[in-house]
């Protein structure tokens, strides 16, 4: 063993491991210092970790510069109080059914491009499959409520929401590539806001700073930015010794 690391600082990621074929960990320390990152790098190399994920507040991201970690995402979290009304969707949005699962998974295969899996050359080959499986899991019961919008009688988008201690979280939301710019995303957000008013106190959603269409949508629907975080990936294979 060349590296030592306090394992209580790491959380295994079995879902990711299923796709990446090796050990995947998430760093739990929200503000690691250089010493910790250094020992984590050494440990990750010794353990041949396929992936180590770290997410920190943007103001604390500087400590990652000049490390083996790669910046893969600037995550912006928005929040909206649910104590005031929201306008309704322009076209009907319905709850998802079991028969929607394949169609939604197909959309998930193609709709995402800004996320950390797509941004990392060591994970991008499985990024579409990860998003599709995630979508299936949410629709199969992980999510609290699943909304589906149609255009021309075909599923054009979905919004899968979790409920955590009176906070409704938009876990995954996507519009089919061929249905974009037709108000599908906005309808799905508004439907969720209407549904959760009275059921939760706030709605929260995370999106990437690079996803400008998404930022504009949330801001125009009354969401306010509550945090800016940076996500980093470390792959043992990428570190030079």
């Amino acid at each position, binding site marked *: 063993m060349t590296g030592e690391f306090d394992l209580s600082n790491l959380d295994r990621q079995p879902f990711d491991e299923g796709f990446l074929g090796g050990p995947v960990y998430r760093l739990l320390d929200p503000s690691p210092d*250089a010493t910790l990152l250094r020992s984590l790098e050494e440990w990750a190399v010794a353990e041949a970790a396929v992936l180590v994920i770290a997410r920190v507040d943007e103001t604390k991201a500087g400590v990652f*510069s*000049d490390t083996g970690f790669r910046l893969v995402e600037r995550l912006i979290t928005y929040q909206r109080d649910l104590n005031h009304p929201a306008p309704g969707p322009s076209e009907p949005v319905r709850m998802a059914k079991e028969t929607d699962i394949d169609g939604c998974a197909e959309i998930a295969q193609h709709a995402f491009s800004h996320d950390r899996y797509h941004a990392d*050359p060591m994970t991008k080959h499985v990024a579409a499959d990860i998003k599709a499986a995630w979508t299936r899991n949410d629709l199969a019961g992980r999510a609290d409520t699943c909304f589906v919008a149609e255009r021309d009688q075909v599923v054009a988008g979905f919004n899968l929401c979790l409920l955590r201690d009176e906070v409704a979280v938009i876990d995954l939301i996507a519009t089919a590539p061929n249905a974009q710019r037709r108000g599908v995303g906005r309808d799905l957000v508004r439907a969720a806001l209407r549904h959760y008013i009275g059921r939760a106190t706030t709605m929260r959603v995370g999106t990437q700073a690079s996803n400008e269409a998404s930022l504009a949508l949330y801001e125009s629907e009354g969401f306010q930015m509550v945090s800016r975080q940076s996500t980093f990936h470390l792959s043992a294979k990428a*570190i030079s*010794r």
Partner: protein
Amino acid sequence: MSKPLKVGVIGLGVGEQHAISYNEIEGVEVVALCDIDPGQLTEVADRQGISSRHTDYKAITENPDIDIVSICSYDDHHVEQAISAFENGKHVMVEKPVALNRGDAERLLRAQQDSGKFITSNLILRHSARFKELKGWIDAGDFGDIVAMEGDYIHQILWKLTEGWRGKMDFYCVTYGGGIHLIDLMRWLIGQEVVEVTGMGNQILTAGTQYKYPDTIINLLRFDGGAIAKNMSILGPQRTQLHALNVYGTKKTFVNDTPNAKLFDGDDAANEHVVTTPYPGIRKGDLLPGFIDAIREGREPLVGARDIFRVMDICFAAWESVQSGRTVKVNYQI
């Protein structure tokens, strides 16, 4: 925007990181991959989405559409592949060591010089933010004259010798694979040339294994400006990995460690200062953007032919000394 540059990568262990780094540079595209292991070839090419896949390196080096070849194969394949690439007019990045003996190095240098194309190698410590800062201080005269240095490659990777491909090659030298980084770093930091080397090695850590050469080597180097240095390669230390570097000048002393280095400007406790600049902080493909810039601008890269072959000549002299038990003058071919 200059013409897009097309890259082929041979050897997909570290080569995958080369491919990733090239693809992140605007106007550069990795168009073909090669590995002798079809399984590794498929896995990496699928992951990186590259369709042109080969098990014969000549499909890369002789491809007229390719401008740059990265050679990340086993060390004993570097020379023939790099020569083929130069003969076909490519710029070449070769993993270190570029060659395993003087004759091969001379043939490679000749091929490179005849081609008029650039060569670089992954002598990557120069890219570490902490060592760049140190070079800035030395160049500015803050250290005064450099008296002595110690630059050691301390890394527990014995399995690479006992189980990996290095141990299966006809010859391997830990100075060529490990200590070389610190030899390059020290030469670059102080801007002096090594004139003679004395080396000693032993084989205690890997005794009784398939590996048949010294696993630990210490070299002493004398520079033309008067500085002297020690360079150790130890691949089985009972400690965490470190590129140990101590630089003793007439005015200041630098001592590398993790996470922080120390800077001294005297012998009192108050003369000790902490250097927090990140170290090592380098990924495997970090020299490639600079190599691309150099190609586009028609100038020598940060690590160029003179650096690469001079450092190899020091390594050859060091190994000759280990074998002969005598001090060896370095004979530079460039």
